[in-house]
C-alpha cells in the first residue's frame, strides 16, 4: 500500500471504530416489558455494597424445597417470578458463600398484595460476613504474595501466578473436603479481572514501543544540556521537567529506562556525579507520572475502578502535581547544591560532548512524526471520549492499531515489545486481590479505617494519603493500590462529601509519591539504580532513603494541601 494512503486509512480506521463503539448497541434490541408477577429486592453487605451472585429462593413457609430461585445481579438486585398458585405463607432465603444466610418472612400486607395480583418490593436484605477457613487461607496467600514481591524472592509475575494458582487450588481441590475452603469459581474470579486496565496498558505499550525507538529521549536530553548552556542547576531542572512530562504521557519505567543511560553520559561529559541528575529525575518521574490517567499503572487501576476520566485526573490532580514538582525542584536544588554549583569549566569533556551531539539524533523521524499525529488524536479521544462513553482502553487499542497500520513495523518485534509479563502479573494480582475481597478481608480493613475516620472527610483525606504514601515505601504500590481500591470505594460511599472521589486522588498521590520514600518503593527507582550501578555509581538503600524520604514528605504534603484546598 502506498505510504500516502496509510495515514488517511489509519485515521479513518480510528474514527470508524470510535463511532461504532459509540453506537448504543444495547438499545438495538428492544426488550419486551415484563408482566409476570414479581417479588423484587436487593441484597447488600454490611457496608452497603451490592452483593452479586447471591442465591435468592422463594419457599413455602419453612419448606426446604424452593418454589423458584434466582441469582442477584452485579447491582445486588433480584426479581423472583411467582408460581401460579401462591401459598399462604412465603419466605425468601438469601444465601451466598462467605456470608451468613438470611431468611425473610413475607408479612401479611405483602401476602395480601401478592394475592391481589400486585408485585411487591422487599426491603434491602443485609448480609453479614462469615469468617471461614477460606478467609484465613486467602489472607495468607495474599500476604505471602506481597512478601515474595517485597523481598524479591520471586519475579512479581511469578508471585502473582503462584498466588492465583493457590487460590484456585484451595477452591477446587479443597471444596470436596470442606465447603469452608471454597473461595470462588474460575468464572467468579474472572469478574475481578479488570480488562479495561489490561487493554489500556497493552495499547499504550505498543505506542511506547514505537516512540522509544525513535531516539526522541536522547534528543530531548541533549536539548536539555544545550538549553542549560552548561549551568548544571538549570540542567537538572530541565531534565526533571522533561522526565516529568514524559512520565505523564508514557510510563515511569520506560521513561527512566531511556533517560538514565543518556543522563549518565551527560554527567560523565560534564564531569559531575550522575546521581545528582538521576535522583532528581526519578523522583520527578514518580511525582509527575500521576498527572494523567495513563501516566502510572496505579492511576490506570484507580481510573478504571472509580470511573475517573482522563479529564478528571488533569483537572483535579495536575495542579497539585505541579505544586509538588515545584517543591521537589527546590528541594533537589538544596540537597545537591554542591554538585549543581560545580564550575562547568572544570570537568567538561569536549570529545564526549561532541559524541553526545552525534548521538542526539532522531533516528526514525518519520515514525516519530506519525506517532505524534496518532498521539494527538489519542489525546483528543482521551479528553473528549468521555462524552460518548469511549473508555480509555478502547482509545489506546485503536491508537496502537492505527499506528501499526500506518507505519507497518515488524509486527513480531512490536508484539515482543508488549510487556506480557506485566499483563500476566496484573491478571494474577486481580485474582488474588479478588480472593481477599471475596472472603471479606477488604471489608474488615474498610470497616477498620471507616471506624477510625468516622464521618470526618479531612481525617479520611489525611489517613488515605499518608497511609498509602508510607506503605508504598515498603510494599509494591501496584498490589497495594489494587487492594486499597475497594476500601477507598467504601469510604467514598459512606463519608459525607467524599462522593467527589477525593479519596481516590489521595490514593493516587500516596501510592505514587510514596515511591520516592525508598529504593524499593517504585519500579522506576530499581531500574534507575540498576543502570547507575552498571555505570559504577551504586545507589544504596540508605542513600536513596536519605535523599528520597524528605522528598516524600515535601511532595505528599504539598499535594495533600492542594487536595484539601480543591475538594474540602
Amino acid at each position, binding site marked *: 500500500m502506498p505510504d500516502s494512503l496509510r495515514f488517511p486509512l489509519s485515521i479513518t480506521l480510528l474514527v470508524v471504530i470510535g463511532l461504532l463503539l459509540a453506537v448504543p448497541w444495547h438499545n438495538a434490541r428492544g426488550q419486551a416489558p415484563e408482566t409476570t408477577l414479581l417479588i423484587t429486592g436487593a441484597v447488600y453487605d454490611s457496608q452497603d455494597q451490592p452483593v452479586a451472585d447471591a442465591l435468592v429462593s422463594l419457599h413455602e413457609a419453612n419448606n426446604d424445597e424452593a418454589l423458584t430461585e434466582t441469582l442477584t445481579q452485579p447491582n445486588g438486585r433480584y426479581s423472583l417470578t411467582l408460581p401460579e398458585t401462591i401459598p399462604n405463607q412465603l419466605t425468601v432465603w438469601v444465601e451466598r458463600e462467605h456470608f451468613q444466610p438470611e431468611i425473610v418472612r413475607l408479612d401479611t400486607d405483602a401476602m395480601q398484595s401478592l394475592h391481589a395480583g400486585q408485585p411487591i418490593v422487599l426491603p434491602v436484605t443485609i448480609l453479614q460476613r462469615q469468617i471461614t477457613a477460606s478467609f484465613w487461607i486467602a489472607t495468607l496467600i495474599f500476604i505471602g504474595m506481597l512478601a515474595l514481591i517485597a523481598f524479591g524472592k520471586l519475579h512479581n509475575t511469578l508471585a502473582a501466578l503462584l498466588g492465583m494458582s493457590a487460590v484456585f487450588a484451595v477452591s477446587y481441590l479443597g471444596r470436596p473436603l470442606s465447603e469452608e475452603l471454597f473461595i470462588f469459581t474460575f468464572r467468579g474470579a474472572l469478574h475481578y479481572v479488570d480488562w479495561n486496565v489490561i487493554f489500556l496498558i497493552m495499547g499504550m505499550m505498543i505506542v511506547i514501543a514505537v516512540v522509544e525507538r525513535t531516539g526522541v529521549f536522547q534528543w530531548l536530553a541533549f536539548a536539555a544540556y544545550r538549553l542549560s548552556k552548561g549551568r548544571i542547576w538549570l540542567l537538572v531542572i530541565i531534565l526533571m521537567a522533561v522526565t516529568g512530562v514524559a512520565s505523564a504521557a508514557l510510563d515511569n519505567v520506560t521513561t527512566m529506562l531511556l533517560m538514565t543511560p543518556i543522563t549518565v553520559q551527560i554527567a560523565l561529559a560534564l564531569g559531575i556525579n550522575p546521581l545528582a541528575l538521576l535522583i532528581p529525575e526519578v523522583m520527578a518521574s514518580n511525582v509527575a507520572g500521576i498527572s494523567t490517567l495513563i501516566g502510572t499503572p496505579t492511576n490506570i487501576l484507580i481510573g478504571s475502578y472509580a470511573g475517573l476520566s482522563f479529564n478528571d485526573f488533569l483537572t483535579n490532580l495536575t495542579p497539585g502535581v505541579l505544586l509538588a514538582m515545584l517543591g521537589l525542584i527546590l528541594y533537589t536544588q538544596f540537597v545537591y547544591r554542591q554538585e549543581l554549583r560545580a564550575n562547568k569549566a572544570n570537568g567538561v569533556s569536549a570529545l*564526549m560532548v561532541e559524541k553526545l551531539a552525534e548521538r542526539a539524533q532522531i533516528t526514525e523521524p518519520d515514525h516519530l512524526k506519525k506517532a505524534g499525529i496518532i498521539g494527538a488524536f489519542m489525546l483528543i479521544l482521551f479528553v473528549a471520549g468521555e462524552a460518548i462513553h469511549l473508555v480509555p482502553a478502547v482509545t489506546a487499542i485503536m491508537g496502537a492499531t492505527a499506528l501499526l497500520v500506518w507505519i507497518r513495523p515488524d509486527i513480531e518485534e512490536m508484539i515482543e515489545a508488549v510487556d506480557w509479563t506485566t499483563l500476566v502479573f496484573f491478571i494474577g494480582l486481580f485474582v488474588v486481590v479478588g480472593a481477599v475481597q471475596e472472603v471479606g478481608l477488604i471489608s474488615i480493613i474498610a470497616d477498620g479505617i471507616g471506624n477510625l475516620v468516622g464521618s470526618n472527610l479531612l481525617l479520611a483525606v489525611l489517613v488515605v494519603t499518608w497511609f498509602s504514601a508510607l506503605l508504598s515505601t515498603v510494599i509494591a504500590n501496584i498490589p497495594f493500590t489494587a487492594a486499597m481500591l475497594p476500601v477507598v470505594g467504601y469510604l467514598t460511599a459512606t463519608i459525607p462529601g467524599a462522593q467527589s472521589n477525593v479519596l481516590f486522588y489521595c490514593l493516587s498521590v500516596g501510592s505514587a509519591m510514596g515511591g520516592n520514600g525508598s529504593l524499593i518503593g517504585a519500579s522506576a527507582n530499581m531500574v534507575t539504580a540498576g543502570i547507575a550501578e552498571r555505570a559504577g555509581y551504586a545507589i544504596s538503600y540508605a542513600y536513596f532513603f536519605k535523599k528520597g524520604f524528605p522528598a516524600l514528605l515535601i511532595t505528599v504534603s504539598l499535594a495533600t494541601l492542594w487536595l484539601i484546598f480543591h475538594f474540602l
Partner: protein
Amino acid sequence: MSGIVCALRGGPASQPTINRAVSLAKETALPLFFLYVVNLEFLDRTASSRTHTISKEMAQMGEFILLTAQTKAEAQGITAQGIIRHGNVTEEITALCHEVGADYLVMGQPQIQKDDNVFTAVLHQAFVAQIEAQTGAKVVLAEEA
C-alpha cells in the same frame, strides 16, 4: 597476540583499576584493552521484557565509560582500545582474554556485596583461578584508592 585486559564498570571505584592497568601497560609495553560488559540481568525482576529497549543505550553508556578510561590512558602516553561486549560478565571477560591472548587481566579489588554481583569475594577468588587456568593470563588486582 598478547596484551592487557582491564575490565571496567566505571565510576570512582574503577579509577585505581584504570591507573594500575595504565602503569602496567607502561611497564610492559603491551597493548591495553579496556572492556565494558553490558549486562542487563538487573532488569530480570522489574522489567525483563525491556532489555531490547535499552541494550543500545547501555552500550553507548559503556562507550562513555571506556572513553573516560581511554582519555586517562592517553594523557599518560598509552593508547588503549575500548571494547564493548553484551552478556554474562565472567564469560565475556574470559572470551576476550582468549581472543587477545591476554598476559594480564587487571581487575578491581573484590567488594563484599549482598547482591549476586560477580565480584563477591568467593566468586572473585574462583574467577581469578579460573581465568588464570584457562588463559594463562596473570590476574592483577588493583589497590583501592
